[in-house]
């Protein structure tokens, strides 16, 4: 789960990271009032879950409260990478002497959180890693012992080789960032840029945090930070129905059990010249209710031309899935064709249920996918 910049900043500020003051506004008038309260130069920043906000025109400097109001009216409602800006952060502008990058990611290779720091801050760190890897220091941390002071200081010296005062300030920030990362179950926590002002202060100007979804049960306070307006409505609906769903641009709606098989099904749709409309995993436990919800979410998408079920019954009982299909379509008759592939646990019972209710089903994945792609293209099913 991604959280917004202002939410990440609130958490980091509470952990002791120096961050210029700022508040959130949802209207131009609020932005004006905040700018007035802060005084001086302010930055108006779009709060969306997308990178490249600056390039898209979503981050602007305002000299007066009136200008802040005007800029906010332009930024609010703006589309950035398909997401509508609903909130802006109005924050005191800082003078910048130098910019650095500080981040922690959960690294799969070392199986540890890894600090990444670079004196080349303010820009895309992936680009720095690709073009000038020598400008990045990577430091894995053993979570059983935590970040040690010597490690924090090593990171600080990499950023400021000849200024021990800044190293001390940076080390404190590293320690606070690590503590925040661990305490909140993060998979990523990033300060970019970490700036040095002309007066020599080290402060964080932007922050990004992603929380491991598996930690949310332990952290109800973080679940509350989820901004559902920043997400695809069908994905919110799916999550609330305990389904893993990702909307895509195609027209073959896929309902599959298991993530690997779901991806392989989408790939096979593409292989036969079709385009998947979504990723959907109904999970391992077979509950007819899940099938009902899955069908509701998929048929709500007007671009879907055909529904494809691909169920390999292991723990999932295929008769439960068949019952779900029958229940859902009785309540809301389908307006588009459905192709069903079922095999595995209780396959015979499932086939009987489907046939009795006027559906046909196959036990072969390849045939089912081919048929679904043909139907989506408006052709006749073989």
């Amino acid at each position, binding site marked *: 789960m991604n959280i917004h910049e202002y939410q990440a900043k609130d958490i980091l500020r509470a952990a002791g990271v120096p961050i210029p003051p700022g508040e959130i506004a949802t209207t131009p008038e609020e932005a004006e009032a905040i700018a007035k309260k802060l005084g001086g130069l302010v930055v108006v920043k779009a709060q969306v879950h997308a990178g490249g906000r600056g390039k898209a025109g979503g981050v602007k400097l305002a000299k007066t409260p009136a200008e802040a109001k005007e800029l906010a009216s332009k930024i609010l409602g703006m589309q950035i990478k398909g997401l509508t800006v609903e909130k802006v952060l109005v924050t005191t502008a800082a003078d910048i002497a130098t910019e650095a990058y500080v981040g922690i990611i959960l690294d799969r290779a070392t199986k540890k959180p890894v600090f990444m720091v670079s004196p080349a801050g303010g820009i895309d760190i*992936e680009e720095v890693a690709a073009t000038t890897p020598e400008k990045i220091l990577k430091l894995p941390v053993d979570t059983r012992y935590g970040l040690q002071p010597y490690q924090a200081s090593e990171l600080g010296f990499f950023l400021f080789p000849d200024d021990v005062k800044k190293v001390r300030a940076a080390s404190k920030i590293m320690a606070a960032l690590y503590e925040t990362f661990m305490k909140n179950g993060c998979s990523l926590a990033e300060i970019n840029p970490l700036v040095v002002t002309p007066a020599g202060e080290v402060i964080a100007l932007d922050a990004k945090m992603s929380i491991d979804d598996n930690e949310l049960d332990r952290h109800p306070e973080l679940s509350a930070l989820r901004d559902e307006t920043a997400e695809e409505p069908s994905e919110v609906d799916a999550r609330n129905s305990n389904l893993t769903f990702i909307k895509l641009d195609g027209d073959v709606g896929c309902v599959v059990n298991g993530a690997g098989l779901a*991806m392989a099904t989408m790939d096979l749709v593409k292989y036969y010249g079709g385009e998947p409309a979504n990723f959907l995993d109904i999970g391992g436990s077979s509950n007819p209710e899940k099938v009902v919800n899955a069908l509701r979410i998929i048929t709500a998408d007007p671009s879907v031309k055909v529904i494809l079920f691909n169920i390999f019954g*292991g723990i999932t009982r295929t008769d439960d899935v068949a019952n779900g299909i029958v229940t859902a379509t009785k309540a809301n008759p389908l307006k588009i064709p459905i192709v069903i592939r079922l095999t595995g646990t209780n396959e015979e019972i499932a086939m009987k249920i489907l046939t009795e209710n006027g559906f046909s089903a196959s036990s072969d994945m390849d045939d089912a996918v081919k048929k679904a792609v043909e139907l989506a293209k408006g052709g006749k099913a073989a």
Partner: protein
Amino acid sequence: MSIFIDNSTKLIVQGITGRDGSFHTKQMIEYGTKVVGGVTPGKGGQKFEGSVPVFNTVHEAAKATGANTTVIYVPPNYAADAIMEAADAGIEFIVAITEGVPVLDMTRVYPFVKEKGARLLGPNCPGLITPGQSKVGIIPGRICMPGNIGVVSRSGTLTYEVVYQLTRAGMGQSTCVGIGGDPINGTNFIDCLEAFEKDPNTHAVAMMGEIGGTDEQEAAEFVAKHMKKPVVGFIAGQTAPPGRRMGHAGAIISGSAGTAAEKIESFEKAGIGVAKRPMDFVELLKARM
């Protein structure tokens, strides 16, 4: 022969009285797995299904039964502790089925298990099966058949799909291992490939990877350098958008890294047969054996 488990495997079940644990324990016993005990704190002294002794701790269970393997079905927030308890009790092989274990928990568990000298499979995995001998986890036994193909995969149902097709084509399996879909897990592709290469009963390997991370690329290098047996591979997620978690916590393209295309390319370079569809394994394996 086989890898990791066979008919001498003595298994305990952590979370044996829970909903998933009890269901799958019955299935494992039915398949012929030697389930020698179970662990549920507070239910020590009871008998599961009238015959399997239940203990309060893994230490007690290990001491009383001589178990060498455990399978874990406890809820996600307790899984890390369950794995560490098993490793501390001297269990050699730990199979963690639980899905949804916080990744940071695994950063503590992984080095602990290593130091104890145990092998971990999972978490978030379907377990493994040596057809006709022993099954540990949730892979449906009836789709498998004894034979000479080693199967290793990051997925559950996709593995079933491929195994089912192998079985229908008369190609039995030595052992099928699901390593799981989490970003930090125990046994990886290379561990399994190494074991399959050494196992005289495995004649070829079917490997199913997916987007995210670099495990498949490293496995491909291993195949090129160290394997004489033929390997056929498949990568799921060619149509996955970047930056989205595709069900499995580890199935995510980060920036431009971990795509299906780069993994497939590494397979091709290593001489691994690339299955474009899950159905292509049978023909590709036949052509190489």
